[in-house]
């Protein structure tokens, strides 16, 4: 196993995203993560396949020096599924946007998660259609003013996290494009996870939706408005690391440690591996102004995967069946002789 570096994953193609686009940082994180994944799992470079749909972020496969498939709008998840079932030895990374995965491709997205097929989906969520130049997407905020909603949208957005968990997803993580180190951490965890891993990357579109995530990504407020969850660690956040999340009534509440009788012992410890979907759902749903937005790996649980199931069933039937060639098949069942 040769030691791969991020350069091994950089293709010779010119990266053509806009200067300042959040996608650059996600690409960099992926190129830095894959050598670590290879190190950890012994994966050769030719084992990686990067798949995408259509949209700005879906250009990503061209920038990776791996096998790549830039498919059609919304269908990346179906293409990934076919690749993985055909050859489970391959490791699949998929890039898709919020419109791509959640609008036109919503059906494939939820069914991949339901099947728990072992693919790694990076969901670039910039809350806008960028490549078509600025129409609202299924994650645009209620009332968003865009080219197709000049008076504001009148529809609720999806929270990708609750969608994934609602489909009984086994892995969900969220991050900001600018969190390079955290993104490497998330991508490595996703690679280690068997099953569908969804990584929501809140990315900035500098041209059509600039600052959509600024209320979170601005360094001045980030520590107070987000919380990075890590399995086994206390749910502590804030510039001064003095805030924590506690269970309160039927929900989660943010408290200041040492105030109102709350101590560090009251603060929840994150368990990404618990089957309990309820707590993960609450964490994925958190939003301001009362609660921080959860970043990091929110859920990472073990379950059977679709690709293993397909492969094992073929093996089982092969072992039990009496038919092992087409000639045997053709002569199976009722036949008769004509002399």
């Amino acid at each position, binding site marked *: 196993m040769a030691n791969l570096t991020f350069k091994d994953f950089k293709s010779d193609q010119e990266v053509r995203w806009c200067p300042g686009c959040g996608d650059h940082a996600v690409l960099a994180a992926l190129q830095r993560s894959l050598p670590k994944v290879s190190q950890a799992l012994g994966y050769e470079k030719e084992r990686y396949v990067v798949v995408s749909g259509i949209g700005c972020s879906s250009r990503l496969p061209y920038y990776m020096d791996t096998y790549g498939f830039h498919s059609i709008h919304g269908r990346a998840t179906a293409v990934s599924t*076919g690749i993985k079932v*055909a050859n489970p030895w*391959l490791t699949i990374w998929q890039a898709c946007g919020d419109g791509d995965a959640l609008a036109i491709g919503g059906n494939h997205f939820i069914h991949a998660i339901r099947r728990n097929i072992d693919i790694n989906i990076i969901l670039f969520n910039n809350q806008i259609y960028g490549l078509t130049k600025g129409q609202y997407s299924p994650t645009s905020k209620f009332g968003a003013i865009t080219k197709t909603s000049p008076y504001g949208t009148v529809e609720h957005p999806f929270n990708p996290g609750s969608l994934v968990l609602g489909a009984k997803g086994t892995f969900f993580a969220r991050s900001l494009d600018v969190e390079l180190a955290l993104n490497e951490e998330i991508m490595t965890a996703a690679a280690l996870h068997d099953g569908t891993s969804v990584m929501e990357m809140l990315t900035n579109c500098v041209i059509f939706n600039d600052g959509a995530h600024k209320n979170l990504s601005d360094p001045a407020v980030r520590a107070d408005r987000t919380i990075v969850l890590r399995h086994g660690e206390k749910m502590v956040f804030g510039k001064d690391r003095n805030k924590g999340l506690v269970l309160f009534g039927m929900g989660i509440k943010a408290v200041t440690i040492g105030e109102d009788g709350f101590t560090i012992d009251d603060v929840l410890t994150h368990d990404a591996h618990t089957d309990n979907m309820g707590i993960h759902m609450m964490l994925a749903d958190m939003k301001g102004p009362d609660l921080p937005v959860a970043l990091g790996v929110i859920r990472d649980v073990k379950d059977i995967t679709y690709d293993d199931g397909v492969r094992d069933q073929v093996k089982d039937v092969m072992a039990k069946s009496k038919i092992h060639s087409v000639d045997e098949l053709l002569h199976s069942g009722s036949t008769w002789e*004509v002399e």
Partner: protein
Amino acid sequence: MQLTGSLFADMSAVYGNKLSVFPDYPAEIRAPHGTVSGVSGFQVHIGGDDVITPGDFCDLLVAMNPAALKANAKWCKRNAMILVDTDAFDEAGMKKAGFQTEDPFLELRVEDRAIIPTPITTLTMESLKDSGLDMKTIRKCKNMFTLGMACFIYSRPLEYIYNYIEAKFAKKHPELVEPNKRVLNDGFNYAANIQAIPNTYEVKPAHMKKGTYRNINGNQATAWGLLAASEKSHLPLFCGSYPITPATGILEELAIHKSLGAKTLQAEDEIAGICTAIGASFAGNLAVTTTSGPGLSLKTEALGLAVMAELPLVVVDVQRAGPSTGIPTKTEQTDLNQALYGRNGECPIPVIAAHSPAHCFDAAFNACKIAVEHMTPVILLSEGFIGNGSEPWRIPSMKDYPEIVPPLARYEGHPFHPFERDPETMVPKWAIPGTKGLEHRVGGLEKNHEGVLSSDPANHALMVAERQAKVEKIADFIPELTVNGPASGKVLVVGWGGTFGHILTACHEIGDVPFAHFDYIYPVPRNTREILSRYEKILVCELNNGQFAAYLRNLFPEFHYIKFNKVQGQPFLVEELTEAIKEAYNG
């Protein structure tokens, strides 16, 4: 009734008859009982060497209720027998079927046929009164009584059906073995005793070529042909499909045969069916998706992707009556234009067609061979009529089938260029992910030979021309068109797909009528122009409004075409074809 018909057909096949069957059933699973639209029919044609269609008109009509009589009386020959269950011809049954008078036979003008009124339900109940079975189960046995009568009429020994009953019920329902055998036997004896049967038949075995035979329907043969191609190409078979009538049988059949390494994925929709297959193809499997007309419409965009990525893929379209949902269980050939042209951009895809239930095996095999060896999606057109229809098939040996050789790329020390072609065939190489050193990117965007994105006008024109040339060169690898009958003359009858049996029968009935049938539609065989040029008129017969005729006219505008079309969701009748052919001669 479908089961009873199948049993009669299977028994005849084993006896050595040639046969052709056509199940004709409503779209609803439990269609309103007793109504004309809810009639489930099963047509069996048995005989000697010339049986290649389910037949137009029948010698024996079995009508288990008034609606069945009403729906099918028009198909009775002048001297036909009509066997009816009089127990079902009560006031309610007659009303449901919409009869206006008390005499259904007179009303349908079949009163002069040999009518055999039989209280089948009553006789069955009488037969089983001491069996200890409940009434519901007893009533279910009445089809066996009818089958027993049919066996008498066609001089068939009952052993085959005894064996079937034993095999079916011995393990799970041993209590049903004796009652079913008894009812079958009682039906046979009843028919022998009543002396109301005007004539019995003895259909001699056909002169069939020596060999081992089996019955096969078109969907099963398609599935098996795909498995055969998988074996001959040494590529695992992947089928991504969404259930749709009348194509689902292929997916169901493949799902059984995992022992041959076939992977089936029941997708969340038609688009996922084809997109998973495209993914599987990229990963090096023999990839297939199966569908019917509305599903093919949904797959359209992804077909373009497969053309652009130049990946092998077989798309099976078992056509049904359209447009839109149309009449899902009825047959048509109306998807030809969609298969040929239904995509954005210049997007050539080879189209081939199966012409009979058993031929689906070879057609599916050939579709795979073309797809893999020429690195292209291929559309295989089947039809509800042949997909559900069955016929005896002389079982071939796989050693007589050619190897399928995928043009696999090997690492040669430099980066792989996905769209560099073999100069003879214009076929690019297939670089399978997982192969060291061949990393490359494909997708829907236009690229140059190296696989680099390009919107250069000259490059686009070149790539469009090359993709087209690749497909058209397939003509060098397919059989030439042959003519059944005289090599020149006034009229050449032309068909494609599942109309083969009816057209051939019509040509034989008239005499020496030349007939050319197209299994390969795009590209057409190389000698097509030369063949067509030998006749004054080309009569194109098809179950649509003239799609193949228009296609031929577009390719070879110099010839005189006449069309004969039918769009009723039903196969041709031999009778209407013979009239059309005679008219073409006389016109």
